[in-house]
């Protein structure tokens, strides 16, 4: 399985770091891309990840109200909801896209959520719908 996680620099990336510092375990399938803000995550990157064969994508940012840039995570949520609609519309399993609020102290939550998302993705199986094959 391949799971791409976009993590904001201020909360979620720090939360993922804390998971590490606390030596909590989660699947190796999770690969984190650091961005400054969840509001920076371009929907095209998400689609690109699916095209490249990602089985799941997670956008993770600060809890509502905690955004370092005040409103970035609200934008992330709006785009996420819209993208889900779009995915459903074209008949793509929208469960493969997840939005997660994780703070810098929620290392455990981060690890647990990654674990459960991996399990969900496993049930869905390999993602072939959007994967590009030459």
């Amino acid at each position, binding site marked *: 399985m391949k799971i791409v996680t976009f993590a904001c620099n201020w909360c979620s990336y720090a939360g993922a770091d804390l998971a590490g510092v606390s030596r909590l375990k989660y699947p190796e399938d999770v*690969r984190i891309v650091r961005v*400054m803000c969840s509001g920076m995550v371009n929907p095209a990157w998400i689609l690109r990840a699916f095209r*490249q064969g990602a089985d799941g994508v997670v956008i993770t940012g600060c809890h509502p109200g905690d955004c370092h840039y005040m409103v970035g995570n609200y934008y992330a949520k709006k785009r996420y909801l819209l993208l889900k609609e779009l995915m459903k519309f074209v008949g793509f399993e929208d469960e493969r896209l997840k939005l997660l609020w994780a703070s810098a102290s929620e290392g455990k939550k981060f690890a647990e959520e990654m674990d459960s998302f991996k399990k969900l993705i496993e049930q869905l199986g390999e993602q072939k719908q959007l994967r590009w094959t030459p």
Partner: protein
Amino acid sequence: MSVLVVGGGIAGIQASLDLAESGVKVYLVEKLPVIGGRMSQLDKTFPTNDCAMCILSPKLNEVARHENIEIINNADVVALEGSAGNFKVKIRKRPLYVDREKCTGCGVCATLCPVNAVDEYNEGMNFRSAIFLRYPQAVPKVFAIDKSKCIGCGICYNACVAKAVDYNQKEEIVELNVSSIILAPGGRLFDAKKRGEYGYGIYKNVITSIQFERLLSATGPFEGHVYRSDGKVPKRIAIIQCVGSRDEKTNPYCSSVCCTYATKHAILAKEHIPDVEVHIFAMDVRTFGKGFEEYANRAKKEYGVIYHKARVANIMEKKDGNLLIKYEKDGHSYEEEFDLVVLSIGFEANEELRKYSEIFGIDLNEFGFVLTDSFAPIETSKPGIFVAGVASEPRDIPESVAMASASAAKASEFATERSFAKKEEFPPERNVIGEAPRIGVFVCHCGVNIASTVDVVELAEFAKTLENVVFADHVLFACSADTQEKIKRAINDYELNRIVVAACTPRTHEPLFKRTLMEVGLNPYLFEFVNIREQCSWVHTDRARATEKAKALLSAGVAKAKLLEPLQFVEVEVVKKALIIGGGLAGMVSALELAKQGIESYIVEKESELGGNLRHIYYTIDGKNPQEFLKRLIKEVESNPKIKVFKSSVVESVEGFVGNYKSKIKTPNGVEEVRHGAVIVATGAREYKPKEFNYGHPKVITQVELEERIAKGEVPNSVLMIQCVGSRNEERPYCSRICCQVAIKNALKIKELNPDAEVFVLFRDMRTYGFLEKYYEKASKQGVVFVHYTPENPPKVNVNGEEVEVEFYDEILGENLIAKPELVVLSAATVPNEDNEITSKLLKVPLDANGFFLEAHPKLRPVDFSTEGIFLAGIAHSPRLIPETISLSLASVSRAMTLLSKDKLVMDANKAEVTKERCDACGICVKACPVNAIEIVEFKTRTGVELKASVKKAVCLGCGICSASCPKGAIVVKGFTFDQIKSAVDNLLEVVV
């Protein structure tokens, strides 16, 4: 010269950062091995429930990294000589038994240590090792051996790959010359055992509020699960207020923070255990700060938290561990059963203050806190020594932070030289534009931290196979000094123009490597960090799979590095002047402090004279004369050559950005244009003109009007005061904070001038927080009658011709009473100025729901706006008393000085940039930008004029909301461009098997 800051809690941290940022060298002395103080133990912070560590940890790292700050940890001040401007301090550095320079903070020692010692950070609820780091995010990230627990087995000594453990380390005495001192040692929490009737230490399910805080925390003893001692999840929690506060036997003053933190605890308990019932027992609910009343309302309405206006007499334990609480309410006694009791313990004076008072020669007050003056709240009794935070009175984080900034302003008056990191230290930058990427990769073992899970040798070999990688190696510690040299040599020998380091997290170590690049003339933005420790080796166990993942991460990092461009720090010239809007107490204090720091300012006052609300204050609760103070201030302001006052004037327009503003001021003599680098908003607030209680009748007046009369010698024989008029209602949900104090002040004044006068106060909660409590006590003792009322059953003021009568319900007698006082005095709300909206639009800064100005962050940035260069002072922020207003005003100066002390502002280069060819000027990005950094401007082209988006680099924060909003990909954030991340994502996935 330099400043000594004593105490590394949030106050000491903020003071150090402000000083360091304005070019003053700081020595930060902390008694523990790590900084962070009380705030580091908090789970969430009120009233926003922000995660405490999320907002604290960036500050910790900033302190660790700032070249003007030297942390002296595990140390105390032992002696002081000299006077303001020239102090000589002796500091004792106790041994850590670990070499500060060598320890990388990897933590292998702690995992192997066989000792179980009580974990103070988790308030004794679990164990730590003898070699330990107080908490995972701690700074400095150096382990220390607790010699009282160490058994000397030598396991850590042998396990440490960096050879940092040194059992023979000795105590050291350091001598420093400093020009001023800031005392911020914080407070101590009350020992709940002293209130034996609550059974703390005997009953297992009676815990303190700080223990509850740790239980709630994800890094706490049960990882954020709230359990009782027997592992049961509590279903009924009682929170008891004023344990060790407002108590004759222990501490008579109010601890100010407990009511709001108890509210937080109740809300968080509900979030952790949805079906839990939480009861708070309090004499008065004192949620007086900005947004606190709304917070308590939410606790009641949304979370169903139950508040009892009651004092708990005692607690008895049942066999099953449950607790029976006996309490008094409305004159009756009750008993109720709970399964967990949380005691809201208050602040006490830090035990070290007594020692410091001797060493420093400063006075303490009757409660053992540092003595200050209402008109000089930051100064101690000794010139050159200042105080911040809980050391002078119990206070919450924003007040402590404001005070810390204020103390930084005062302390830097004595620091004559300012020094900034000089750019010339670095060799000229090599031009790499046009060169093909030549990437160097360094893979870190981190001792065994990475190497034990990830095959670093294979990873380095793999790196060599990646496109454009011309050099790859693996190193024991990438952060060590010898590796830095190795990197520099490789850059020169192999003509590298991009560096990728696969090691730990960029959040702590990126600046180190960027600096290394600069030292050999390579642009620091040509660096990419790959996290294979926190996000790989530490979270995985399967070596093959972890190595495979590390390869993917590295491959993504290299792919992104390929597309990195050299970026230039954004530099802005600074006009070293400030514009102050409002000439009341806050504006004048700010201007005078700026003048002391050598900065010119313009005060714009809409009235024809300076002074604002202070003009209507004739005496203070502690017997000071505000009118004399005001006269002195006005004289100082008007005679100061660095201050220009525009009276009967308004600011018409403000253009520009941080460091460079151009404003037009409409004065009676026409429009004046001024240039300045910062703005301080000190527009104040005013007393509400009540619509309720027949205000307007000659016998119904407000507190300000009463004060005016008393000052003229018209002292009434009988007065009935009504609290919360226009506050804490639907229209104005906030608490006006100052009115309880004003009522008591006026009541005491009446009693002083006319001891036989009858004074009644009808109140909802008496909010005489902090040391004000003693005046509440005094008023009660002098016969002022306090009668509680509820908003459901408010008093009625009936008018009958010239006469007024007040009908109110007495809870203890259980009946309605009628009073016919000579005067009915309404404690009217403090309301925001009508023209706040205009100012808000003028400066593009936000207002809160109540119409006061909204600061950048309610906790840690109380006087900053999210727009850089604009600051907030005084009661335009929220209602507050004179000392608090002064503190906030000095704080705004300190924050402004972090800009105005510099000739040029140097900002991070990760900013948004527009590709003009793609931009259609649709304006979506303009709306999306949270700080108004983007504007649509006209560009001249060969074919005419075109509209395009343009980024004000000095304002942009680099969040990238714009880039994801742009339908044409015309705007990107440098360092996180569309292609860079896309390429990283591609490579992250390609190698996955």
